[in-house]
């Protein structure tokens, strides 16, 4: 059932068993798990069913660290959340991503990959990828023989691409026609009100941009607003704990992680067509699902070299800025970093005629690039705090201070070296490190970008001194507040987070069913 919060009586008090704040991938997944049950669910969404500028402007914020996307461009604030513009990249986190690795400070989840496996399989269905195939079966499905890389050095993993599933469209109808799930649109949560002991949440304050006010009372609350907004709301909810709700150990907002993405190497090959056949994005002959292999350092290499779990894809078509223009053209959007794209285009103008000639006359691709997706090392100084600037609701906007460290760069360089060695051994190509990777000064080139993934800001750990939520995603010290989404990831791996967000949300929903029935 959908309700426009603006139409409710001023000062309305809505009662439910479960209140979910945020109707993105996590919030909608949890709400769907309760459809048809006797549990009363209230799903709060700041926006409406379509994009609107006024609501979206609430997502503006400051970037004070490494150059980053505008915060109101890398997230969407209406029903379905950021799935309304996600690209559909899916890959589960690896076993090693959950482990405590001595060479990665602050690493280790309080759960194992095996705890998520059954939920990954279901998540795969939710994001419409079909069969859960990520291992060796991928090659059978694709009917290709993979290169015989030395598995002690290099491992192959696989991306699969969701259509991409727009959660707000695909799952709208079933939420709309169910009575036990109320979706309140245009309902902005402005405060999470805890009891005086800060051991439980009593209610959340809700306001619309038109001035309507109300509150939602529930047995259990789930915060599911994303990796920037989750810590923001907790920091803003400082009526009882002045440093922010659940922030007694100053962890809320810290450990902000992205997936640093950048061209890390060039590959030359006399077998470019063969490599393209193997490594390019392709549709599965059986399922029609798109997939693409990627390369990661083996577990042995990660431990031996002390590096992170990065991944590299071979890109055959275009340079980074060319890809930006291509995607923008096809999406009828202005490029995300318009001026940077213009700058890159001017800088590389001399290469355009050669690329165009090669492509249009000979059908040759300009070059082959290693498109790197890094696992970012958890870093407490990379964080989300509150800005002095305020939004239309009078709430402090978020300030994102994205910081990378030397291991992030070193890990990429080591992976390129391993790939170079293996490509040479198999004589399928030679690899050249990007110039910026040759400089060991901790700097990053202007072409660095993130992947619109916001993780780590309310991290999961058994010890309250190390994490904001426990292994069930319940906030330490507050018995009825849970957090869903990638903000609970203690480490990021290199897989895009949506599939893991959905899997974790399914797991959380199972847990909540038990809790509410108690």
């Amino acid at each position, binding site marked *: 059932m959908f309700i426009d919060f603006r139409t409710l009586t001023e000062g309305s008090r809505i009662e439910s068993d479960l209140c979910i704040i945020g109707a993105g991938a996590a919030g909608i997944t949890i709400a769907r798990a309760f459809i048809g049950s006797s549990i009363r669910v209230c799903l709060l969404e700041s926006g409406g069913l379509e994009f609107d500028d006024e609501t979206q402007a609430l997502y503006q914020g400051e970037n004070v660290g490494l150059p980053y996307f505008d915060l109101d461009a890398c997230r969407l604030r209406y029903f379905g959340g950021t799935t309304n513009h996600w690209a559909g990249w899916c890959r589960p986190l690896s076993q090693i991503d959950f482990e405590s690795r001595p060479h990665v400070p602050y690493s280790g989840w309080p759960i194992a990959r095996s705890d998520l496996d059954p939920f990954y399989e279901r998540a795969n269905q939710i994001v419409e990828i079909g069969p859960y195939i990520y291992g060796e079966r991928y090659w059978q499905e694709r009917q290709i023989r993979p290169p015989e890389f030395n598995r002690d050095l290099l491992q192959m993993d696989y991306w699969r691409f969701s259509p991409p599933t727009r959660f707000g469209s695909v799952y709208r109808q079933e939420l709309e026609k169910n009575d036990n799930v109320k979706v309140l649109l245009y309902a902005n949560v402005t405060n999470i009100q805890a009891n005086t002991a800060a051991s439980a949440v009593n209610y959340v304050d809700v306001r619309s941009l038109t001035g309507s006010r109300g509150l939602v009372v529930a047995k259990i609350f789930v915060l599911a607003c994303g990796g920037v907004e989750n810590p923001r709301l907790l920091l803003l909810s400082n009526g009882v704990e002045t440093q922010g709700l659940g922030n007694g150990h100053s962890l809320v907002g810290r450990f902000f992680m992205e997936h640093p993405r950048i061209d890390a190497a060039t590959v030359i090959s006399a077998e470019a067509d063969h490599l393209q056949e193997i490594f390019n994005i392709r549709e599965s002959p059986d399922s029609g699902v798109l997939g693409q292999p990627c390369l990661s350092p083996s577990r042995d290499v990660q431990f031996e070299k002390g590096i992170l779990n990065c991944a590299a894809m071979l890109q055959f078509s275009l340079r980074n800025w060319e890809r930006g223009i291509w995607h923008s053209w096809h999406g009828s959007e202005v490029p995300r970093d318009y001026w940077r794209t213009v700058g890159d285009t001017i800088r590389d103008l001399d290469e355009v005629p050669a690329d165009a000639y090669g492509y249009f006359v000979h059908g040759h691709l300009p070059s082959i690039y290693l498109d790197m997706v890094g696992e970012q090392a958890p870093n407490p100084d990379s964080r989300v705090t509150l800005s002095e600037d305020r939004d239309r609701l009078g709430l402090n906007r978020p300030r994102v201070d994205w910081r990378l460290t030397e291991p992030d760069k070193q890990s990429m360089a080591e992976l390129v070296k391993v790939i170079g060695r293996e490509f040479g051994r198999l004589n399928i190509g030679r690899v050249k*490190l990007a110039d910026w990777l040759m400089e060991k000064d901790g700097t990053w080139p202007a072409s660095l970008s993130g992947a619109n993934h916001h993780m780590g800001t309310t991290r999961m750990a058994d010890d309250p001194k190390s994490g904001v939520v426990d292994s069930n995603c319940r906030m330490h010290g507050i018995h009825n507040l849970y957090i869903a989404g990638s903000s609970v990831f203690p480490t990021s791996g290199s897989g895009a987070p949506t599939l893991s967000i959905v899997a974790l949300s399914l797991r959380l929903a199972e847990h909540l069913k038990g809790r509410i029935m108690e």
Partner: protein
Amino acid sequence: MQSKIGMHRRDVLKGLSASLGLAGALVCSAAEVTASGVGLVEIRRHIRRALTGIFNEELTPRTIGHGYLSLYPEEADIDWLWTTLAGSSAPSRADELTVRLAQLRQRDFECGEIAIVDGWILARTEARTCALLTLV
């Protein structure tokens, strides 16, 4: 005052002397041999052929060669490089050398005997082949 014919004659003489100089240089170069008795022209031909399978132009391997020699100046020795690459009993045919270099390259990659030069991740054998190219 010079006649038109005089000018032509001078030009012809200039051209002739230049041509003779060039031919002389080529003859000397062809006659230059390594200690192992292999001519530089022949070496150049062999290694160009060996590198063709990797690089489709010569500028990159030359740049790599210069870079490698600046990292390992003690290896800037044609005889030593040739013997290291071709072996003490130098192959008599180009395809024999190509096979030998492929074997060495394979061994290097398997053993992690890698040279990173100007960002290129190469088997040491390949980097040495590039170095030799710059010397002959």
